[in-house]
């Protein structure tokens, strides 16, 4: 029944249907806006949004905002990776470190990180630095937990064999633990990537200071609806693109199918 139906829906058919559903939404959007069913303030026509998108791209404001936001997210994510991955592996190798950090992580992991934004502003000012650190703070916990789980689940036999062949502790880390844990660490990084984007955009929306989120809020306050929609669509596109890239990277770097 469903099995045959799934087979009939070929790859091309799937793509066509996806296109149809996206196009339907755009056409309905355009029609509703043009027919005056919704005020242009609430729902500007799609064509107008695209024209606005082209205009803000051409005058360089959108690319600049995007560059600011993406660099903040990237620096924060790199910082979180630089702290989270080594600490996660160290926690898996040392019971004392595990004991020391486990309660802190248990308490901090489920907490909404954006609530800490006022503290970061108080300590590090209202410019990029506080936002980057907040992004790092938000991303470090999923990376830490992922790396810990990955390093804990490395096959004991691999470690024992390497140890019996006389591998030193440092070489063990780089030759055995890291390669074996890599696929799952990368999966954790893929989880952290959208977290970094969400945190950057939200922090910018709350505290301003340039970037996609700040301009989005600014346009909303002045009721420039086409700009609001153009920025939201850009964020959607960026999110999709980055996830696609991470998926490809994951497929390319996964030499084994998980430990």
């Amino acid at each position, binding site marked *: 029944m*469903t099995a045959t*139906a*799934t087979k009939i*829906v070929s790859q091309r*058919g*799937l793509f066509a*249907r*996806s296109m*149809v*559903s*996206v196009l339907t939404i755009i056409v309905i959007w355009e029609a509703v806006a043009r027919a005056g069913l919704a005020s242009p*303030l*609430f729902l500007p026509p799609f064509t107008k949004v695209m024209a606005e998108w082209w205009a803000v791209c051409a005058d360089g404001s959108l690319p600049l905002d995007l560059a600011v936001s993406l660099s903040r997210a990237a620096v924060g994510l790199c910082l979180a990776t630089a702290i989270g991955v080594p600490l996660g592996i160290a926690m898996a190798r040392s*019971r004392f470190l595990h*004991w*020391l*950090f*486990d*309660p*802190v992580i*248990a*308490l*901090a*992991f*489920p*907490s*909404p*990180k*954006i*609530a*800490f934004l*006022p*503290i970061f*502003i*108080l*300590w590090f000012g209202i410019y990029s630095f506080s936002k980057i650190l907040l992004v790092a703070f938000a991303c470090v916990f999923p990376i830490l937990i992922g790396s810990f789980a990955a390093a804990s689940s490395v096959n004991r036999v691999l470690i024992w064999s390497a140890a019996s062949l006389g591998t030193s502790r440092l070489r063990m880390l780089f030759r055995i633990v890291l390669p074996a844990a890599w696929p799952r660490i990368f999966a954790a990084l893929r989880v952290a990537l*959208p977290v970094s*984007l*969400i945190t950057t*955009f*939200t922090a910018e*929306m*709350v505290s301003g200071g340039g970037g*996609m*989120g700040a301009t*989005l*809020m600014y*346009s*909303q306050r002045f*009721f420039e*609806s086409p700009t*609001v*929609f153009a*920025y*939201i669509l850009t*964020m*959607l596109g960026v*999110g*999709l693109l980055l*996830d696609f890239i991470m998926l490809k990277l994951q497929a390319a770097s996964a030499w084994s199918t998980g430990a």
Partner: protein
Amino acid sequence: MRADRTSLLWSPVGRVLPLVLIGLLWQAASTSGLIDPAFLPSPVRVGTAIYDLLAGREIRDNLFITLWRAGLGLALGSIAGVWLGLMMARSPVFRAYATPIVGGTYSLPKSALIPLFILWFGIGTATSVCAVFLSCLLPMVVNTAQGVTSTPRVLVWGAEAFGTRPRAMLWRVYLPHALPNIFAGLRVALGFSFVLAISSEMIASTNGIGKLIFMYGENGAYDYMFAAIACIVVVAFVADRLLLMLTAKSLRWHESAQRST
């Protein structure tokens, strides 16, 4: 195993010890003047502020408003998410049409929609609940769809052989099989619900805990700001633990529960 010392450290009391150590270090740094108390109030002062806040109505009222928004959005989002996920898993046609929309909105930072909701619904509960709803919807859809699609054929055939009717299949086979995935999605959604409720309050609201934290910060009442943030951390932690307990209770029959105990 090794001596009692290690098992003592791993007891429930021993596991709180690192937090106590951090508190003591923090207090020591504060009293010795190593850090400016204006930037980091000492734990004692934050503790007094928490006590003070809990005695008054301000934090309770605002916290309840935030929890109400988060809870309502989470409830609506999970119900709609499970239903949509089920539809996507059971109907290939529906899945083909819904996949690009789900995929597109899944990677969109949902807080980006807050300005849009402010345009549509104004400032207040509707905006918060809508943002929370959307952020909870997507993980529920994806997880439910995954859980239902991965139902082994053997289970379906077995149930059919016993004469289970198609409608009953849903409740007796597909949903129970997807339950671990649904709970996993619910945990993600719970985290999102707090984040979105608080950030929407920080961006545009007249009340709620997010607004309260910012207000304390702007007035320079930093010990109260830290106290309010500490309240949120504790509430989020307790909510997460309660969900984990509920998960363990509901999935007692599942093999994942047997393996871990």
